[in-house]
């Protein structure tokens, strides 16, 4: 009898050890990737790197100014499209649960969340690139489509968490419905909505696949949004598969900047959610 209990206890301890081992082993790849990118990238980044465009193959020097500016433009434009639509749709979903339109919208959000990014790229190619040619705008629209479900879901979840008494109190004071939404509901859920937006930007800024057939990429500096534009993830992709060492160096630098940006955005979201105590 003693022996049997001992066996069971040992089994339990071994199981715990295995679980702990597997759970923590998974942090190794992340740490290795982070350290490697930092090691390779940090040497590349200097003022010259940030303010110059890439040089032709074989020449040393050059930077990624065009990709930096391009990424900011493309992501900025997609935010302008996706944030209002996403917040409004999120408000609709949380205000009218159970209606038929809300049900189908929820279904569409779920579908959109699962659509592979490359498929979004193809579709936007036919919507916009086919009639108007490659442009930064088409890339922004592709990214906006990827951004929407995250913004909608986070807005909806945050607003559902608000106590209904808030809204009822405002309504009982005779405040019109649209002002209740704008002055009470949205400000109260602001932190949650904001963290959803930041998270969605962090997600789309590293998306490459939808940009392959839309924003295309451009080796020159360009701020014309109706023409092809370079972006950070795309510059990494093209230079990663190129045979030149100089270009690999550029790509390491670009990866470093992209990675830092994504990490900062994520940490920022964490701080916001911790301060306002939101569960996403």
């Amino acid at each position: 009898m003693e022996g049997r209990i001992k066996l069971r206890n040992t089994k339990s301890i071994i199981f715990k050890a295995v679980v702990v081992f597997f759970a923590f082993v998974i942090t190794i790849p992340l740490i290795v990737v982070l350290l490697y990118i930092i090691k390779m990238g940090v040497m590349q980044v200097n003022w010259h790197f940030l303010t110059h465009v890439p040089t032709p193959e074989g020449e040393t020097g050059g930077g990624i100014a065009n990709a930096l500016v391009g990424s900011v433009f493309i992501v900025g434009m997609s935010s302008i499209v996706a944030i209002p639509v996403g917040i409004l749709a999120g408000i609709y979903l949380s205000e009218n649960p159970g209606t038929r339109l809300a049900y189908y919208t929820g279904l569409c959000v779920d579908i959109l969340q699962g659509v592979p990014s490359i498929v979004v790229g193809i579709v936007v190619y036919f919507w916009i690139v086919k009639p108007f040619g490659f442009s930064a705008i088409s890339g922004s629209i592709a990214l906006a489509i990827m951004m929407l479900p995250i913004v909608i879901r986070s807005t909806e979840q945050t607003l559902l968490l608000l106590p209904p008494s808030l809204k009822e109190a405002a309504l009982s004071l005779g405040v019109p419905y649209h002002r209740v939404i704008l002055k009470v509901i949205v400000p109260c859920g602001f932190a949650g909505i904001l963290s959803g937006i930041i998270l969605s930007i962090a997600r789309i800024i590293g998306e490459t696949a939808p940009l392959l057939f839309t924003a295309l990429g451009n080796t020159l500096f360009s701020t014309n949004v109706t023409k092809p534009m370079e972006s950070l993830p795309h510059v990494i992709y093209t230079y990663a598969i190129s045979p030149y060492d100089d270009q690999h160096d550029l790509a390491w630098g670009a990866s470093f900047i992209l990675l830092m940006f994504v990490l900062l955005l994520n940490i920022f979201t964490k701080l916001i959610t911790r301060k306002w105590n939101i569960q996403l």
Partner: protein
Amino acid sequence: MSAILIVSVVGIMITLIIQSIPSIQSLGIKYLWGKVWDPVNNVYGAFPFLQGTLLTSFTALIISIPFSYAIAIYLGEYNTKGWLSNLLKNTVELIAAVPSIIYGFWALFVLVPIVRKFEVSIHVVPLGVGVFSASLVLAVMIIPYAAALGTSLIRMVPSPLKEGAYALGATRFEVIRSVVLPYTRSGLFAGILLSLGRALGETMAVTVLIGNTSALAHKFLEAFFGPGNTMASVIANEFQEADHAMYLSALIELGLVLFFVTVIINMIGKKIITKYTNK
């Protein structure tokens, strides 16, 4: 605004279907198991890509399952609060945050040489790039999805159930095996489905690593360690080169298949979760 969303999703579906009509009409259902992909001679068969996609996704899934289960059990049962638990939780979330192109780029320069050495030691052609490397990276990338869902589900197991088992003298392992895991089984399965949906559609890391060949390997070892192509990677590589309507249409049909497969998998996963959390 909600209506805009619905219109755009329906629009995506319609666009894909319309653009792939030429290929559907002329190739029919044979397209899916045609073994040869030869755009120059207008022969299109998607089987190599189906095989590549399934092989990479399921290998990645099998590698990832022990890890995501372990994280879910650790965070959900052994260590639910405290700095260590928070640290691990945030780290796992960061894994999902790193852009896939960065994983691909890193793996191309660090992982591929290691895999190459490994392939030399087991006597297969040491290319380094291929299905195996792609699966390894993919496995890391999809772990957070199943792990996050599993954690929250395991935390939702009612404590009277567990307390009952403890009162009967069960050890921790026995409680987990015969109370927690059976209770959360369908939820954990849903988490794996969501991971699978991610793995199927993942493009950039795979495109960089898989080696890109449309030829069908005949032996299993060749298919497993050799270069291949997934549906997403072939679209990424050949879409811009597609110079005639038929070629383009065949690629879009791949996109259509990918779209429906991921949508169905995600829907099943979501259904299980809602059913589970409302119970």
